[in-house]
């Protein structure tokens, strides 16, 4: 029994204390958070833009008979978005990550930037469809009421449709960001020293798997729980108009 505990203690020390390995884990955590944070931002921006292009095309351009120049622009953008969605959703994120790093970033080899862009561009495709479903879920009457007041399409989107759509899709968006956070664990494929990569590195140095792997699992779990907590709070705040 005592032997068991002393092995445990040795393993703990070799995982965390020796060579200050806990600082490596900490910096791995920092990189994971950094990639997730900027990827989420890219994902939201890309996703919103694509969702707006796609639903503008669906509701505004598709049914029109007389097309103007701006309608043709939307038409072309819509086609580009469709290609983007097909490719991004049709290939594994690890493959996209490697293409980004080994082909597109072949000369710079900035692995963290490559990871941020890959995960952001990947997430944007999913966010786009989530937000588009939110826009489609809003009653047509909301759109008509806004237009009848004299708001143009853009202002109707900004003031009336998107705030309601966002509220409706918040749970699905939260889910997407949880997935994204955990997905960044494959960043080690392109030598990003994120949390998972560092944990695995320590495992291979110490020949001891228990502490490093359970630790990184626990850290992801705690991160997701924190994220869930704040999303829940935001959801409750946005729901104050539904009594």
């Amino acid at each position, binding site marked *: 029994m005592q032997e068991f505990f002393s092995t445990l203690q040795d393993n703990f020390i070799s995982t965390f204390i020796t060579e200050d390995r806990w600082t490596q884990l900490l910096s791995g955590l920092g990189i994971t958070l950094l990639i997730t944070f900027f990827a989420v931002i890219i994902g939201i921006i890309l996703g919103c833009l694509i969702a707006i292009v796609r639903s503008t095309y669906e509701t505004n351009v598709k049914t029109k008979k007389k097309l103007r120049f701006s309608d043709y622009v939307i038409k072309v953008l819509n086609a580009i978005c469709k290609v983007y969605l097909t490719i991004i959703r049709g290939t594994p994120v690890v493959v996209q990550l490697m293409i980004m790093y080994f082909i597109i970033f072949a000369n710079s080899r900035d692995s963290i930037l490559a990871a941020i862009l890959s995960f952001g561009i990947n997430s944007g495709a999913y966010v786009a469809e989530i937000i588009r479903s939110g826009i489609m879920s809003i009653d047509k009457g909301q759109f008509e*009421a806004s237009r009848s*007041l004299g708001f143009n399409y853009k202002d109707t989107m900004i003031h*009336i449709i998107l705030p309601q759509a966002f509220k409706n899709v918040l749970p699905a968006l939260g889910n997407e960001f949880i997935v994204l956070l955990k997905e960044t664990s494959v960043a080690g494929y392109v030598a990003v020293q994120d949390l998972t990569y560092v944990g695995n590195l320590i495992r291979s140095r110490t020949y001891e798997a228990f502490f490093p792997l359970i630790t990184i699992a626990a850290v992801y779990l705690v991160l997701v729980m924190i994220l869930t907590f704040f999303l829940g709070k935001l959801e409750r705040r946005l729901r104050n108009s539904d009594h």
Partner: protein
Amino acid sequence: MTTNDVLIKVEGLEKSFDGVEVLKGIDAEIHKGDVIVIIGASGSGKSTFLRCLNLLEEPTGGRILFEGTDITDPDVDINLHRQKMGMVFQQFNLFPHKTVLQNLTLGPIKLLKQSKEEANKNAMELLERVGLADRADAYPNQLSGGQKQRIAIVRALAMNPDVLLFDEPTSALDPEMVGEVLDVMKSLAKEGMTMAVVTHEMGFAREVGTKVVFIDEGVIAEENTPEEFFNNPQNPRLQEFLSKVL
């Protein structure tokens, strides 16, 4: 009250949905101060006609002149003209994520460039008028149907429109709430507001309307003053319709 100023002139209005002709050439004039009541069986095209007036439905033929401008012309900025044409919907269509006050002030602040104080003051006066000033900070989902529709009417009024379009404003209401909405509409009519109303409320048509229009199968089958319209209908379809609803 009726003057000769033509506010809306409709010429040969046609509308079809995927090849199905709903409106088959409608000519109409709405003068300043008119209260035009539009009735007809369901599917007759009366709502479509009303929704064409502010181009919520794009006509497939004919012209609509609003204050002298052909608003069916694609080069006309319809948003500017819509500011002058308020609309009230069957389903109210209040903005659920905004308070009652915000529902009223959104248009005036963003479109008419009123200051927030000015817009709030006007909105409170309008709310006062329909007896809902105490609900200014409520959200639409906290209101009854009748209250929602009264808010919807003052939301349209807040834009200071030249004409109000009502698309079956009482059809989604519980019977005991119909009166409160009609009362607001009656008082507006009394003040000389120009209105076009699609409704099944024959009492309202008789009492408030300056002209009643019967739309049947996409054309205006009969139009007349309320007295003549109800007491001496000419069109056999109208006679049949009135015998069913009166």
